[in-house]
């Protein structure tokens, strides 16, 4: 009987972290609605805009969560997105079609992830160092491809332009603007891609052997090996997945910004990591969920959105708020960790 009680409690402490994240998002958003309701914050479209802006980040955060579950980290993602954007922009301005270019970008993601994964998994080099090298490589290659900002216009590639400007309308939640016109809420194709990625990764982590292996490796790599898992291959898989999802995210990101430049997506890897941490993923591995990371991204997005809507706050405020949130979450996590340790 006692064992059962304990089981229930402990099961909850992981879900509690997720719940806190979701509640926090709702509180933040509600706060935004109350404070800036007059500036249109209450419109459904505001929420959809957060998704549109962060579609790429959602994909990246999913990959980052998988890597962090194994106890690793991948800080190359921001630079890889910059390289992806630059490749798309330059490639299409040289006359290559949109579909082949996207395929090339995804293929680069596979190869890049394979190399990083091999170094981390099979050669057992510190993931921080490997992905830092990857980061410098991608940033450098971006400049090698082109040092100027290259925009993707309708003239350069009509297909890609059409993708970017497609509105996927949503049949509810519209509003009448001050000119008396009914505004139909919409998202961009990138959001659809990001949500599909999110659902796929959620299913993978929950219901496939590979997904569960990521948790096992993060829980205890030595035990995982003793139980017959191929730890090296699993680690490599995680880094490949991260780079592939990052490339998918890169395409989404490019659809939103329609330009490539050397300074594109600076610090995006940190946004992805902070989203995952706020979403309850432990840096030590073994605990976490993409749903949490998704809400982590939304929280970051909401903060930016609030600051933007206010209009008077300096643009550095989102950073400070994110820092405060991260701090709170790390404290909560360590409190839970300490409570669990004491129970034993």
């Amino acid at each position, binding site marked *: 009987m006692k*064992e*059962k009680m*304990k*089981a229930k*409690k*402990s*099961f909850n402490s*992981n879900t509690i972290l997720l719940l806190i994240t979701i509640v926090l998002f709702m509180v933040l958003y509600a706060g935004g609605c109350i404070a800036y309701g007059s500036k249109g914050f209450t419109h459904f479209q505001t929420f959809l805009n957060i998704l549109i802006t962060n579609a790429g980040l959602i994909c990246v955060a999913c990959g980052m969560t998988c890597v962090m579950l194994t106890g690793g980290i991948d800080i190359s993602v921001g630079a890889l997105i910059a390289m992806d954007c630059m490749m798309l922009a330059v490639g299409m301005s040289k006359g290559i079609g949109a579909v082949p270019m996207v395929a090339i970008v995804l293929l680069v993601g596979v190869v890049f992830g394979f190399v990083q994964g091999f170094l981390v998994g099979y050669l057992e080099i510190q993931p921080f160092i490997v992905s830092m090298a990857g980061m410098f490589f991608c940033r450098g290659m971006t400049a090698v491809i082109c040092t100027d900002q290259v925009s993707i216009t309708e003239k350069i590639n009509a297909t890609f332009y059409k993708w970017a400007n497609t509105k996927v309308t949503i049949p509810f939640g519209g509003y009448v603007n001050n000119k008396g016109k009914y505004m139909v809420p919409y998202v961009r194709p990138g959001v659809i891609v990001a949500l599909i990625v999110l659902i796929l990764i959620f299913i993978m982590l*929950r*219901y*496939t*052997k*590979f*997904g*569960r*292996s990521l*948790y*096992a490796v*993060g*829980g*205890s790599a*030595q*035990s*995982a090996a*003793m*139980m*017959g*898992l191929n730890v090296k291959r699993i680690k490599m898989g995680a880094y490949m997945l991260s780079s592939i999802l990052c490339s998918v995210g890169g395409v989404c990101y490019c659809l939103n910004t329609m330009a490539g430049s050397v300074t594109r997506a600076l610090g995006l890897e940190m946004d992805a990591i902070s989203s995952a941490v706020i979403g309850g993923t432990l840096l030590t591995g*073994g*605990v976490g969920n993409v749903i949490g990371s998704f809400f982590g991204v939304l929280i970051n997005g909401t903060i930016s959105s609030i600051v933007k809507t206010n209009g008077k706050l300096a643009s550095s405020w989102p950073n400070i708020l994110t820092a405060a949130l991260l701090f709170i979450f790390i404290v909560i996590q360590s409190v839970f960790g300490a409570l*669990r340790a004491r*129970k*034993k």
Partner: protein
Amino acid sequence: MKENAILEMKAIDKVFPGVLALQGVDFTLCAGEIHALMGENGAGKSTLIKVLTGVYSKDGGQIYLKGYDKPVIIRSPQEAQKMGISTVYQEITLCPNLSVAENMYIGRGEGVRVNWKKINEKADAILKSLDIPAKATQQLSSCSIAVQQMVAIARAVDMDCKVLILDEPTSSLDEQEVAKLFKLMRDLKERGVGIIFVTHFLDQVYEVCDKITVLRDGRLVGEYEIKDLPRVQLVSKMLGKELDDLSDISGEHKKFQAEPNTPPVFEAVGLQSDAGIKPFDFYIQKGEVNGFTGLLGSGRSECVRAIFGADRVLGGTVKKDGNAIKIAKPIDAMRNGIGYLPEDRKVDGIVGELSVRENIILALQVLKGFFKPFSRAEAARFADEYIKLLDIKTASADTPIKSLSGGNQQKVILARWLLTHPEYLILDEPTRGIDVGTKVDIQKLVLKLASEGMSITFISSETDEMLRTCSRMVVMRDRAVVGELTDDDLTQGKIMSTIAGGEKKDE
């Protein structure tokens, strides 16, 4: 193969650089038998287990398994598992962040999908049939260590294991948990599983085992039915001393006489730490050499660690010259004139990258405070003095300590503590892994220091050594003090019978 045997290891050899870890060891396990594998540290128990589970490759001999015509070759723990040999280690080798059911099924079977419903049902059925108090959906870290161990066993059972190796499974369990584990072991025995049980708890061996195989120094001493081998004989076989020889090795040391009417230099009353030892009393007089003896894991080191404040003290008092003092951390002990030479010098003792000189002055520097460093000349003088005094063989005082031999490293650490001029010095296994000459040097030094008025506690796995140096010995068994021997009682035979406990009549 013998009838009913499920595993036969024949003439197993294993060589490590410079050491014959196993020499022609035979081992036979029958179905439905619990077989204890006994031996002191370095006897080759774990090497034999590692050969059997494919962690090490053997250098000679054959392993026969029931159901295989030819001798089998086991290359990895995974291969061993496939052949039906599963191991449950002292440290849990499961993933604490996964559920109980996942821990039983991960890494097995084909396919991509995890069928939660199926594995939860199967796991619950097995847990129920083995009477393990856990639920399939429970997170493993929420189970007690004992239940986690049982889950590991359940995993092995479900993988259809024929040979189950339990490597020190009881060292972190309390008595009730041990009882539960034993019940499970007996259940498995009924099902025809052969169990190899490695432990250092004698009581537990006599409680559950059917047979005992004793190893010593990498060789087989023998295989015995449990009923044919009384405890005292088991201990003597493990230590390698025949009972008859024992009585005439009495110490050559002078009898220690405490000065009358003076309180002991240090005294501990009801001392207890978080390392799991039962509360114990202890005292030491000025100029006395005493020792803690007992088998490996009986709590010798834990006692002195409690006195030194190296483990967290849970209760009891320590008195110095009759006045109570508070020792919460090692630095408190050092300020009260206690020095402690730890058991594992590689982990707790040397700072490998630093020079001999820096290692020598370390403890004194800590006492003085890190913000008042010694001048180089001062440090060099201290170092040279002790390098000479203890005859430490090093190229210079600037040589990194890790390049010295084990014996000389030990001397450096000894020098470190002597430099602080302690009133009471605790030496935990100071002679382990060092050559005979240095051993004798250290023993002589201990007696000399004591004659100069230092109180010393000397702990060693080698009873001869302790008999030669100690005038009083505290005997430990299963983490409790079970006796104290002085004067004429200080003989191998008496020590062994006290360690073995229980069957006094067999003496």
